[in-house]
């Protein structure tokens, strides 16, 4: 979620960072429309003569309530409660492709040279190859993927329990956030209790095949306890941190916790 940026933070930013941030800002039509359109109700804003902009009091209040909702959801989240699982006959076929870009823009990550980078509060930051990840204990589950738009689909993901992986790399399990950077410029972050949930998977397979590019090759984080946009695909780097990392959709106004 957008946080006020301290002036010393801005100073320490490189020019390249600022250009990159501006490019992303301009490249996202949703971002440009967010504040302005938040309050529109037909022609009501014109009728009342109110000027509606991104810095409006209503938007600030709504974002504060969204922070409150993050805390309420964290409080409600039961780390031992499992999402329902389904028989293979109930799998949605074909499982829908969904991203902030079209299927023709799916990134092609080279598996042979792939290395998962680790950062932040992690004891062993050695990068992981796909072969090493595949050598870890694997599990598989059939769960419901729920999109923030309302639709849902049942799919089967297989991979490494994420809690096991975090322990293996010596992550600080008392840290607040786990952040993800992806090959498609997507980024997001989750709370540590969800990261340690028994059904949270570092998914390397879909069904009985290697995770296809359209579903996030070489790996995605699959959490049946979170909405779809919290499940990053094409993960390139994982960081354990106490500094709020935000996310691609979260920075545009979608709720950060995004739990189900």
């Amino acid at each position: 979620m957008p946080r006020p940026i301290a002036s010393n933070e801005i100073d320490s930013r490189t020019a390249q960072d600022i250009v990159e941030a501006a490019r992303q800002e301009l490249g996202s039509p949703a971002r440009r429309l967010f504040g302005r359109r938040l309050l529109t109700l037909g022609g009501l804003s014109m009728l009342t003569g109110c000027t509606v902009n991104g810095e409006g009091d209503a938007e600030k209040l709504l974002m504060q309530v969204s922070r409150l909702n993050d805390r309420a959801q964290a409080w409600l989240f039961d780390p031992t409660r499992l999402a329902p699982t389904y028989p293979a006959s109930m799998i949605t076929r074909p499982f829908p492709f969904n991203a902030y870009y079209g299927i023709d823009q799916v990134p092609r990550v080279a598996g042979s040279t792939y290395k998962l980078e680790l950062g932040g509060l992690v004891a062993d930051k050695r990068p992981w190859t796909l072969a090493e990840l595949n050598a870890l204990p694997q599990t598989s589950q059939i769960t419901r993927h729920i999109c923030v738009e309302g639709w849902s689909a049942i799919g089967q993901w297989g991979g490494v329990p994420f809690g096991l992986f975090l322990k293996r790399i010596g992550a600080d399990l008392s840290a607040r956030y786990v952040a993800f950077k992806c090959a498609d410029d997507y980024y997001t972050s989750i709370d540590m209790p969800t990261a340690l949930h028994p059904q949270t998977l570092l998914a390397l397979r879909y069904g009985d095949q290697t995770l296809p590019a359209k579903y996030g090759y070489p790996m995605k984080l699959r959490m049946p306890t979170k909405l779809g946009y919290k499940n990053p695909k094409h993960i390139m780097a994982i960081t354990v941190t106490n500094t709020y990392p935000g996310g691609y959709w979260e920075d545009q106004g979608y709720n950060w916790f995004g739990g189900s």
Partner: protein
Amino acid sequence: MMTKQTPQKTPAIHPAWLRTMHWLNAVAVIVMVLSGWRIYDASPIFGFSFPPGITLGGWLAGALLWHFAAMWLLAINGVLYLAFNLFTGRFARKFFPLRPAEILRDLGAALRGRLAHADLRHYNAVQKLAYLFVMVDIAVLVLSGLVIFKSVQFPLLRELMGGYDTARVVHFVAMSLLVAFFIVHVAMVALVPRTLLAMLRGR
């Protein structure tokens, strides 16, 4: 502070707490319904969408922010409304007894335009039924909404609603019934404008 009530004045038709909660509920319901239409449009269940111009939030994220802010107002105000009604005895006094024969009689009279509204302190049987119905309907909206919001965290509620996808249909049908109530409710107020004054200033 002393109230400026003169002795000859009769007590308010609706107590101040009820009027306050009624209007807070009206605000919450309008925000919930209009933002809910925008959320529905992101992935319509049926073969139609709501015109964007009559929805609230501008886009999905904005609509969700409104929806998940107004839900607190709707839920907290609703629980307080029920608690005040039960503990003051207003609930039993105003809504009961409610007999089917009286409902049929008053419904017939209402449809012929012969239902008297001489005493706004007294609800006729159709009113009693309509207000009890809308209480139950909002409760169903909150519960089905909880399943959509938190289907993993409320397993019992999820199964009672028939699963995640069915909960969306329940939520939509309950919303439609609430809108139907709203239309009739406002139409009745237009027919008997004194009721609006009573809900605004108590008499």
